[in-house]
């Protein structure tokens, strides 16, 4: 099948991974085979080679990451977030007059599974903090990956009611106006990425993921959460273009291109096992905050009892998008060991290398 036009070149030349969960073409590397072959090295020279190259560069990189303790969602999350922002050096001056976009994870909803999505209480707390810091505007936006119906997702997750009570606006990124931007990463063969105009109009983008295992990528956190800024009208439901382009590679490209200013991770109750939607709840009792997303994700991975170097997208991000080595991350707040909670990954070949860590 010939590639389609306008930058969405999803054809055989781009095939580094198979369709989500589906098998690969004969003689080609599938996502599952790639990941099964052993972490970053299995991603092929483009990712593993760059990981080795850029790891040397990490020597010059430092990032601060804050871990706050919150036993549950009734905790004073606004105070915790405010403390975390102070600890990582985000000042009122940097927020005043800015438009702040909070991007939670609302991938799919189910009445009995609130642990799929970022909890509304954390989003409200973040909004309150940014308003107190004199942000010109705080709003929430998401382009959820499975369900097209944003209103239903907002209704079922409780996010809609929470946002209405706090007079916080919601923007449906799946159906936004879009504009092409050059792919700043280069890990996939996508020349350009289509981004929602709303995203480009925000001054401060805050990735607010749920801490979860992911049955393909191993982990989904602040960087993978950015799949949700990619507009569904261009990438589909699911965003299968990104799957075919390679999930780890797409995570890296989107992160490199979008460059969020901040991450606030809902690690109070996460998900283990068959994440990102079918796993089981796992209590950690933490909120993780940082300005460098690889450093945040690496810290969260350590909280899960895993080794970031064995998570392919993080190994590849090391040094190029930020530091992931413990020595290069200035840990603030609670020590990792105090809240570390071993997360169970599915027993699948491509995840075993991460389990062994």
């Amino acid at each position, binding site marked *: *099948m*010939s*590639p*389609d*036009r*306008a930058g*969405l*070149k*999803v*054809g055989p030349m*781009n095939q580094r991974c*198979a*369709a*989500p*969960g*589906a*098998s690969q*073409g*004969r003689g080609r590397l599938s996502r*599952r085979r790639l990941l099964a072959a052993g972490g970053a090295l299995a991603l092929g020279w483009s990712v593993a080679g760059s990981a080795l190259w850029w790891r040397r560069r990490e020597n010059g990189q430092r990032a601060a990451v804050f871990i706050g303790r919150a036993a549950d969602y009734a905790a004073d999350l606004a105070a915790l977030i405010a403390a975390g922002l102070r600890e990582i050096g985000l000042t009122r001056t940097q927020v005043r007059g800015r438009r702040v976009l909070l991007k939670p994870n609302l991938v799919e909803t*189910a009445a009995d599974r609130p642990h799929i999505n970022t909890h509304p209480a954390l989003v409200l707390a973040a909004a309150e903090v940014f308003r107190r810091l004199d942000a010109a505007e705080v709003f929430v*936006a998401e382009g959820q990956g*499975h*369900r*097209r*119906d944003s*209103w*239903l997702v907002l*209704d079922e997750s409780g996010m*809609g009611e929470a946002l*209405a009570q706090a*007079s916080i*606006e*919601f*923007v*449906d990124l799946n*159906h*936004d106006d*879009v*504009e*092409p931007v050059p792919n700043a990463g280069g890990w996939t063969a996508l020349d350009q990425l*289509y981004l*929602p*105009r*709303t995203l*480009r*109009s925000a*001054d*401060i*983008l805050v990735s607010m993921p749920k801490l979860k295992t992911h049955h393909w990528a191993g982990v989904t956190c602040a960087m993978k959460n950015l799949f949700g800024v990619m507009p569904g*009208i*261009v*990438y*589909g*439901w*699911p965003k*299968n273009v990104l799957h*075919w382009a390679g999930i780890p590679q797409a995570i890296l490209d989107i992160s490199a291109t*979008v460059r969020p200013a901040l991450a606030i991770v809902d690690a109070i109750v996460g998900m283990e096992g068959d994440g990102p939607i079918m796993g089981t709840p796992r209590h950690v009792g933490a909120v993780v905050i940082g300005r460098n997303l690889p450093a945040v994700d690496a810290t969260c991975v350590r909280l899960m009892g895993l080794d970031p170097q064995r998570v392919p997208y993080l190994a590849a991000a090391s040094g190029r998008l930020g530091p992931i080595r413990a020595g290069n991350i200035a840990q603030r707040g609670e020590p990792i060991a105090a809240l570390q909670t071993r997360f169970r990954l*599915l027993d699948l070949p491509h995840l075993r290398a991460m389990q062994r860590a």
Partner: protein
Amino acid sequence: MQRATRLDDESAAPGGRRPLPRPPQIETGPVSSDWRSVLAERLAGAANAAGAWGYAAVSTGCAEPTALAALALVAQHAAPLRVRCALDWLAQLQRRDGAVPVSAQVSSPCWPTALAALAWLRCGSAADGFGRRIAAAIDWLLETRGRAVPPDPAAHDHDTTLGGWPWVTGTHSWVEPTACAVLALRAAGHAAHPRTREGVTLLLDRALPDGGWNYGNRRVLEHVLRPFPATTGLALAALAGEPRTAAVDAGLDYLARELPRIHAPLSLAWGLIGMRAWNATPAQAEEWLAACARRLLERPVIPHYEALLLLAGPEKCPLIVPG
């Protein structure tokens, strides 16, 4: 991040920059019966200067909301000139190969081609003169096929070799684009075409074991996935005219359980369209639609939501193509 040009009317920015109205569970009183004319008038007035609709007021014209708006206005016998403009706009958007992209800003993906074809086919006299456009769109649909991959039973249990329709050329087939393509091909008189038959087979294959459809995966690894009301309704609408199977019955049962608690226009509308395609409209449908319309009217127009609500009413729905 770099600041982009802001829209003039912030209240009407992409996606609707206002708090989401709360679900109208509490409002169960009598509802004005003329909500359809109010909604249709508002929808007609939301077209942009080019005669198209975006996904929000004052946003870029897009093929899907424009096609749905045209169909909805025809169903309401409203604004024929607007309908004609919409059909003309879709024709201008059409590529030489017959495909209709999402908007004028992007030349792909072209999954709205099926909806554009439906609009040209089902808008009655307003659609006179679009024969070549329809033929080109149908040809493109018949040529377009989702990417098949070899079966991998450990990962999936659906038939990954069936060729339905993808959202984006070169990717796998999924339920919504396949259902829309089947609807368009049926409307064009191609119900017996092998591609239509394969699309129907794919839809039946993707039905979830406990009833309903989601975006198109039945199972991933260990778990059977959850159904969604909107894609269930769409699949049922596309299957109208086919023999009534266990998958159809299970889908209808799922919607009958699910729709009473749904107040979101997209899911409610597609759910009801799917049920109506099988003469299974719930008795409370009108009440639900009116409550949903009231919720929509509390905020700036969202054209594709409003169009779908109008299409889900008791009038003859141009989306449903009887067998």
